[in-house]
């Protein structure tokens, strides 16, 4: 057990104990806040079906292997470990697929290789943008994301590019 395992339990304790100290009727207030949980998830559901069906079909098609084959020499030519580049494509689209890809890199090169370190930095620098947008917009039933997706993907590109350069600087 590490320190980070204690954060959530201690935080929950602090909230409930602190609420009691402030004379909040903690049980009743908790129920009041929690009652909408299911309703919200019901609103998110169709958005998640749309997103996950598309992501699963893309993964199952083997398109990633094509992307990897195409990107590896490009990366090597630019002076980066080419094997990590498909991660830049996967990371915004699917969290589980990106985790799986990083695991594969760890097994092939080791977590402390330049490939493993770069992949880790890439994973730590952005989120699964499409999933986050689907969940948050789904929760309020918004179908038109305006420029949220575009701006999110541009930020991802910036973060992933930065991850490549910073990793080369630190570990190259």
């Amino acid at each position, binding site marked *: 057990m590490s320190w980070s395992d204690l954060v959530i339990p201690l935080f929950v304790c602090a909230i409930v104990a602190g609420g009691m100290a402030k004379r909040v009727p903690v049980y009743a207030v908790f129920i009041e806040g929690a009652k909408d949980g299911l309703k919200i998830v019901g609103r998110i559901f169709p958005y998640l079906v749309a997103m996950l069906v598309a992501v699963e079909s893309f993964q199952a098609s083997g398109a990633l292997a094509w992307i990897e084959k195409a990107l590896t020499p490009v990366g090597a030519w630019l002076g980066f470990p080419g094997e990590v580049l498909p991660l830049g494509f996967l990371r915004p689209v699917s969290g589980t697929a990106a985790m799986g890809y990083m695991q594969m890199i760890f097994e092939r090169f080791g977590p402390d290789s330049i490939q493993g*370190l770069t992949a880790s930095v890439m994973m730590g620098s952005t989120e699964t943008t499409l999933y986050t947008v689907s969940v948050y917009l789904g929760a309020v039933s918004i179908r038109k994301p*305006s420029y949220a997706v575009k701006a999110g993907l541009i930020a991802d590109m910036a973060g992933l590019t930065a991850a490549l350069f910073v990793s080369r600087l*630190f570990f190259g």
Partner: protein
Amino acid sequence: MMDIIWVILLLGGIAIGVISGKGTEMTQALMDGASRAVELCVRLAGVCALWMGLMEIMRRAGWVDALARRLGGVLHRLFPDIPAGHPAMGAISMNLAANMLGMGNAATPLGIKAMEQMQRLNTSPDTASAAMCMFLVMNTSSVQLIPTGIINFRHAAGSAQAGAIVLPALIATTCSTLVGILVASLFRRLSRRRGA
């Protein structure tokens, strides 16, 4: 934008799969995707209810407003459309704090709460508002200070220097968040000009 991404992933995937002779796998993948949405929703429902209940306790104890007041200066610049003291500011502060501390499963329900509050201020309820876009970009670009999940994962894979990525990841995520904020405020200005 969402149309294009969805069509590329879905139709691109099906086309490539069919060309590679993976008809059975593709059928399975489509059904699996739909089922995984159910699994995710079930997991999310419980976590959502838990954190929303806890958030309500924190709100009634006055801590949410206290945090929002403390972050008020910065947040007001990022979200000029949200009036000071509006409950949306409280929910946004809670979400960003949870994100920074790496409490991912608390951050999502708090973020949903923030979206609901921002929807009340939204003048065209079928489209994401400028405040929502800024909020989404800050969330998707990850404002986590220490990527605990990745560090644990590296540790489990037998890394001798699992924590070596903390500083580089912090630099990279700062880049993505700053670029995200800049791009979102740029788009905001462009869409205002077009609308005027």
